[in-house]
């Protein structure tokens, strides 16, 4: 089979799974729905492997295939196909998405067991995977936008999955609105591309763009900036990031799959996919790099002070995506994609481990209340440690190789990019500290009541379930965590998923070691070969130097965290008191929510209120009541004539005829 056939199958299976589970929720037994959902994604992954093998059989320079099923619209110069584009980049994304999704489905199979919305969950999760695959396989900008919007919807539906929780529905709406802002950027960018180049297909656009646009011409810069709006909104980069932390209201597998491993990397994929355009507009690329850098630092500081476990990990996700955005913006495409892959492994795993602990804590997410889980949940704590080591770029783990490759490339480009490299290392230090802050707060120490019960009885404590944000009691009729939700790492499927990811988080980086193996960059090389930065390779020596620095920084960060959170547990409080303003700034998330509130939400509300009070009341209402009044008045007059007196009708008739006759008499003479 050809690569494109495989790719169509990749798309088809999750869609079928979603439809089958969604429609068959009455007849399918719960377990079967979970199995079906997981198998659909696993099959999709197998087809992705098929596409990969078929692609590897081709000559490296002809490894791109387009295929279309039918035409959406074909009129007057507009030719939109339902077409896919299969090349190493999209196959790479397909493999990452389906691979991680398979494991997360497996995890959810156990984790969501007691949830009343089990079928709905798997149907939506399969739909999400389908949308994401549509996004990465799309062969033109129109289909990309379709996938983009589907993904936004799936994210919305899954964040609001526990729909009796008001905080969850609000978070869903927030995510959706911010994502739609991004969609608008993407749609406008596609419009500009079509106006200037007359094409939507990737192949055509990327071929024509260098001939039509001069470097840094304002149109290409506008196109790239609009693409960036879309990418930033989806990838939670400043200033469109506020939805991501709130998105943690969704079930933990959702946070793991959508808001850590796959969907939020769509922006990175978009920049890498349209790198031809970004290279024509170095200004826009620099904007992206700066925003990525700012995000990775700002989010790192926020992750440092969050006490909510899932939110802290969410800020860490933002920060890591900042690295990827910076990487693909400065031209380190394969390094950015490599980091995307390793991040998907370890961040998905970190969320899974967090999910197990939160379940054991009866839905409490406050790390100040946690402790001693190292003894209570051995398997979870080991996997969490693996993920944390990879995230903190501990030497030899996957994050170690991928992060430093981006920074080494930044150093190689020199100039202001060297400053980016230095700040990137500062971010790496932050990463190591906040990651191990979480680990040292949760795993060692005296076991808290919940952990003690787990050690003593082997059962999970049953606290009353409360919303971690608002403190309201949960409505368990519609799901989470279900009346008897005590899954802490109990289910075999969860253990398998976490085990596989733990291995990948540790050794996943070995596919790309400077000077030794370059599996990822060799595979992706044909996609980026025409890039004018393609010749720029950091020498193996400088990369190893970078790795040494990165490893040292990682160890330093872990050391600092050890010092602060294990050796001298009072130190953080003292430091907090001494740096009060800074701490307040970080805890309040740099006041971004408030800033957006003042700059966007309130003006919008004011306009809305004005429209309601003035425009609606006087103009619209005036028109409507005016029309109504006229009709009513005229009707009143006509009604008065219909008196019911036959003789008055006769009088009118006779008077009318007499009047007519008089008129004709007068005019004829």
């Amino acid at each position, binding site marked *: 089979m050809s690569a494109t056939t495989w790719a169509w199958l990749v798309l088809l299976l999750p869609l079928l799974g979603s439809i089958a589970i969604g429609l068959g929720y009455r007849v399918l037994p719960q377990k079967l729905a979970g199995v079906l959902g997981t198998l659909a994604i696993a099959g999709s992954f197998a087809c992705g492997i098929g596409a990969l093998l078929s692609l590897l059989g081709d000559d490296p320079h002809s490894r791109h295939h387009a295929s279309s099923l039918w035409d959406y619209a074909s009129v007057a110069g507009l030719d939109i196909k339902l077409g896919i584009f299969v090349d190493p980049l999209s196959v790479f994304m397909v493999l990452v998405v389906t691979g991680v999704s398979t494991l997360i489905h497996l995890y959810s199979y156990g984790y969501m067991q007691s949830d009343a919305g089990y079928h709905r969950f798997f149907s939506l999760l399969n739909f999400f995977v389908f949308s994401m695959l549509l996004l990465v396989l799309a062969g033109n900008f129109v289909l990309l936008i379709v996938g983009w919007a589907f993904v936004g919807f799936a994210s919305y539906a899954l964040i609001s999955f526990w729909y009796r929780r008001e905080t969850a529905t609000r978070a869903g709406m927030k995510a959706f609105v911010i994502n739609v802002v991004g969609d608008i950027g993407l749609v406008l960018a596609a419009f500009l591309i079509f106006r200037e180049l007359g094409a939507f297909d990737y192949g055509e656009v990327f071929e024509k763009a260098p001939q039509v646009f001069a470097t840094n011409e304002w149109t290409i810069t506008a196109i790239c900036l609009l693409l960036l709006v879309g990418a930033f909104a989806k990838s939670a980069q400043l200033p469109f990031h506020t939805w991501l932390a709130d998105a943690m209201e969704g079930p933990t597998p959702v946070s793991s799959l959508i808001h850590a491993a796959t969907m939020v990397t769509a922006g990175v994929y978009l920049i890498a996919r349209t790198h031809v355009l970004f290279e024509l507009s170095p200004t826009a690329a620099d904007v992206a790099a700066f925003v990525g850098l700012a995000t990775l630092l700002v989010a790192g500081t926020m992750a440092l002070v969050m006490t909510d476990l899932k939110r802290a990990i969410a800020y860490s996700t933002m920060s890591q995506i900042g690295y990827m955005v910076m990487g693909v913006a400065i031209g380190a495409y394969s390094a950015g994609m490599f980091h995307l892959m390793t991040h998907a492994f370890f961040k998905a795993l970190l969320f899974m481990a967090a999910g197990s602990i939160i379940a054991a804590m009866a839905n409490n997410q406050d790390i100040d209340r946690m402790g001693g889980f190292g003894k209570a949940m051995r398997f979870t704590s080991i996997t969490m440690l693996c993920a944390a080591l990879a995230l903190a770029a501990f030497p030899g783990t996957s994050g170690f190789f991928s992060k430093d490759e981006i920074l080494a490339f930044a150093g190689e480009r020199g100039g202001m990019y060297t400053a980016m490299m230095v700040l990137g290392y500062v971010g790496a230090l932050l990463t190591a500290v906040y990651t191990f802050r979480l680990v040292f707060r949760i795993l060692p120490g005296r076991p808290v009541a919940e952990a003690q019960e787990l050690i003593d009885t082997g059962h999970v404590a049953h606290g009353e379930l409360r919303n971690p944000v608002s403190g309201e009691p949960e409505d368990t009729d519609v799901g989470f965590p279900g009346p008897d939700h005590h899954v802490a790492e109990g289910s075999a499927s969860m253990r398998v998923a976490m085990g596989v990811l733990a291995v990948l988080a540790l050794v996943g980086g070995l596919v790309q070691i400077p000077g030794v193996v370059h599996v990822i960059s060799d595979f992706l090389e044909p996609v980026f070969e025409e890039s004018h930065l393609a010749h720029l390779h950091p020498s193996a020596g400088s990369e190893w130097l970078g790795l040494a620095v990165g490893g040292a920084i990682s160890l330093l960060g872990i050391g600092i965290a050890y010092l602060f959170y294990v050796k001298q547990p009072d130190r953080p409080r003292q430091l907090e008191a001494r740096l009060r303003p800074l701490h307040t700034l970080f805890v309040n998330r740099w006041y971004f929510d408030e800033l957006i509130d003042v700059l966007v939400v309130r003006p919008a509300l004011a306009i809305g209120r004005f429209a309601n009070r003035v425009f609606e009341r006087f103009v619209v209402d005036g028109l409507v009541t005016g029309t109504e009044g006229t009709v009513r008045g005229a009707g009143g007059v006509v009604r008065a004539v219909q008196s019911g007196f036959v*003789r008055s009708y006769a009088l009118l008739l006779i008077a009318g005829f007499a009047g007519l006759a008089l008129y004709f008499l007068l005019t004829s003479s």
Partner: protein
Amino acid sequence: MTPEWFIVLSALLFATGATGILIRRSPMVILLCLELMLNAGNLALVAFSRMVGNEEGQIFALIVMVVAACEVVVGLGLIVAIYRRRLPLNVDDLRELRG
């Protein structure tokens, strides 16, 4: 004889009929007054027909008589129906169709 006299007579009859319709309340009398108006019209038709010198006006007058006969049938039928239902025989009281 010049047609003026016929026309004057016809106009007088028509006016009498119209006045009757306007001032009387009994359906019976109104029906009679209607007949008067129709026949005033007939008279004018016949007079003009003589004046012009062809018979079409006279034929038309005959047709009007036929129609008038039909109209009387319907009108009297209505009056009988009103009487049978013990409704007042007064057009001013029969005003349920007012707007």
